[in-house]
């Protein structure tokens, strides 16, 4: 619950009310730190298995590899807090860049035939716009037609992936606009630009959820939409906005991805949604809405990435790779559940 008490409240409340039990308060403070122990354990193992683990090169590498996933997680976390779900993010990360390039890349010369309908500099804006459009359509289906969100976005997942395949004719696009590459390649102050951008976005998002009126509304809506509505919160409008923001973030993740890997592959992001949910939920965000923090979600991402990193460093036999991966997710879940002392769902 502390995940959802106002910042500062829990801490300052202590003196205020002697009647409040220390224990629940501590839980309160720890709720979104519940993965920290897991991270420490992983770090320790990493340190033991290889000296290379604690090198800045390695840790920065992990950070950079986390960027795209973390943006999806950021979006999904917001959507879950407001009490919805969006599976299609994993396709948006691929289809948005492809559509953007299809519109800006020249129609001849180069292997991928674009339309050349728009100037190249518009690539990123268009990409984000496509994301917004996708979110808006999902929102329409879910909020106005009142279709089941899980299954609508599941359909969208398949459809958008199919759209990407159809447009790119299943090929990966290699000549990508420089604006994309720039973000993938530059580093600022010794760390990749993408890392800084993600940190900023998480900070902004976290601050909004904690201190902004509309941010707080997300928790109210996720906690009890009807109560929020009678309190004068424009439930549908805000939910819709959140769905759009989520998709825009996914589209932006697509930009980073493309820059990071230098091309748009036809299966970019496919299968990621599982990781997105795993990260978000072990990070303490509730699937039932109204609970969780972005910081928690971020620790979730880092956990998953560190697992892969450590396993690679440890040279885990390939055959056991996947098994361990799943096992560790469950163990992490158990640890975080007891660290937070809270029953889930």
């Amino acid at each position: 619950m502390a995940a959802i008490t106002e910042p500062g409240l829990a801490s300052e409340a202590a003196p205020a009310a002697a009647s409040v039990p220390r224990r629940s308060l501590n839980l309160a403070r720890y709720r979104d730190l519940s993965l920290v122990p897991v991270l420490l354990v992983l770090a320790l193992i990493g340190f033991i298995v290889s000296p290379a683990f604690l090198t800045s090169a390695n840790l920065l590498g992990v950070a950079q590899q986390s960027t795209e996933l973390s943006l999806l997680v950021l979006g999904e976390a917001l959507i879950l807090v407001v009490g919805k779900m969006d599976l299609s993010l994993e396709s948006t990360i691929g289809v948005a860049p492809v559509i953007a390039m299809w519109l800006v890349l020249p129609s001849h010369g180069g292997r991928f035939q674009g339309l050349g309908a728009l100037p190249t500099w518009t690539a990123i804006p268009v990409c984000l716009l496509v994301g917004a459009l996708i979110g808006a359509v999902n929102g329409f289906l879910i909020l106005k037609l009142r279709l089941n969100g899980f299954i609508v976005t599941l359909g969208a997942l398949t459809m958008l992936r199919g759209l990407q395949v159809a447009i790119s004719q299943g090929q990966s696009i290699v000549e990508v606009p420089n604006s994309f590459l720039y973000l993938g390649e530059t580093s600022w102050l010794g760390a990749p630009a993408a890392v800084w951008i993600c940190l900023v976005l998480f900070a902004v998002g976290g601050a909004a959820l904690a201190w902004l009126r509309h941010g707080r509304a997300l928790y109210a809506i996720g906690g009890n939409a009807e109560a929020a509505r009678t309190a004068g919160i424009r439930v549908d409008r805000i939910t819709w906005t959140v769905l759009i923001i989520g998709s825009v973030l996914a589209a932006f993740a697509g930009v980073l991805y493309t820059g990071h890997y230098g091309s748009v592959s036809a299966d970019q992001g496919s299968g990621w949604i599982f990781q997105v949910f795993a990260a978000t939920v072990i990070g303490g965000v509730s699937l039932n809405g109204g609970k969780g923090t972005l910081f928690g979600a971020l620790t979730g991402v880092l956990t998953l990435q560190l697992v892969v990193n450590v396993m690679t460093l440890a040279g885990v036999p390939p055959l056991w790779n996947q098994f361990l991966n799943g096992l560790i997710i469950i163990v992490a879940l158990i640890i975080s559940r007891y660290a937070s002392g809270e029953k889930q769902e």
Partner: protein
Amino acid sequence: NRGSTTASGSSAVAGKPAIGIDLPRADSDFWNSYAQYLRGDISSQGLNTLPISSSQNDITKLVANVQVFENTGAKAIVMAPQDTGAIASTLDQLAAKHIPVVSVDTRPDKGKVYMVVRADNRAYGTKACQFLGQQLHGKGKVAEFEGDLTSVNGRDRSEAFADCMKQNFPNIQVFPLTTNWDGAVASSKLQTLLAQNPDLNGIYMQAGGVFLQPTLALLQQKGLLKPAGTPGHITIISNDGIPQEFDAIRKGEIDATVSQPADLYAKYALFYAEAAAEGKTFQPGPTDHGSTIIQLPNGLEDQLPAPLVTKANVDDKSLWGNSVSN
């Protein structure tokens, strides 16, 4: 409804036997090139084919599609079962119905096939091993991007590569990295490996279509992308022979690739399918197109040549990567 039009169109194609063709997946460069060659050859040779289906890398979809081919009167079927085990019972059914099957790129574990059209994946691995071994003069550290553990072709390449390395170049340390054919995974694991072994001096990627760009991008960022010949250059051999790889070879970013002949796959898949439908038979032994047919317990296999492409022969027009229509 293209179904009926194709059917009627086919009756125009003077009574040629109908061929059912299934594509394994629509989301990979290699298979899309293959598909394009297929379409080209079909129209140029005026073959009578049923509507081409795609099984999205899902064996159950493949079986479903094959069933449709049966019911729509296919006289021969071209497929590329990515799961060589689960196709067994379907092959038996088709055999019972006397519908010959041409299997492209993969060799079914069980069940009768008329002809397997593929290049020897073990040969890929061995060629890559030989090339790297010579380039590195038999010592150094090599990263290997394995595909998916559940993929037969991937496994063949890995095993052959490992065996060859163990036998011929014991002083080369190999780091196998499983990637599930995912470029992002490959990139992140390579990044980790580089942090651990900055002195890495060779990379074998089992599928250029998937791994090439992410790897180049990573090396670029790490400033490790030195042109071939300059000190600190990491020797890279890829696999597939797609145009992007050729560009990279020309730029000296990578050293070589094994060209997996999409054009020949398409050409001879159709050739054998038609021959089968007309009841021709073939014997083991060398063929007229520089390959050899070998005997399998459950059929024949035409092992197409898979040339190693280096800076030397990268501009060879006969390579499909240089003639691909996009």
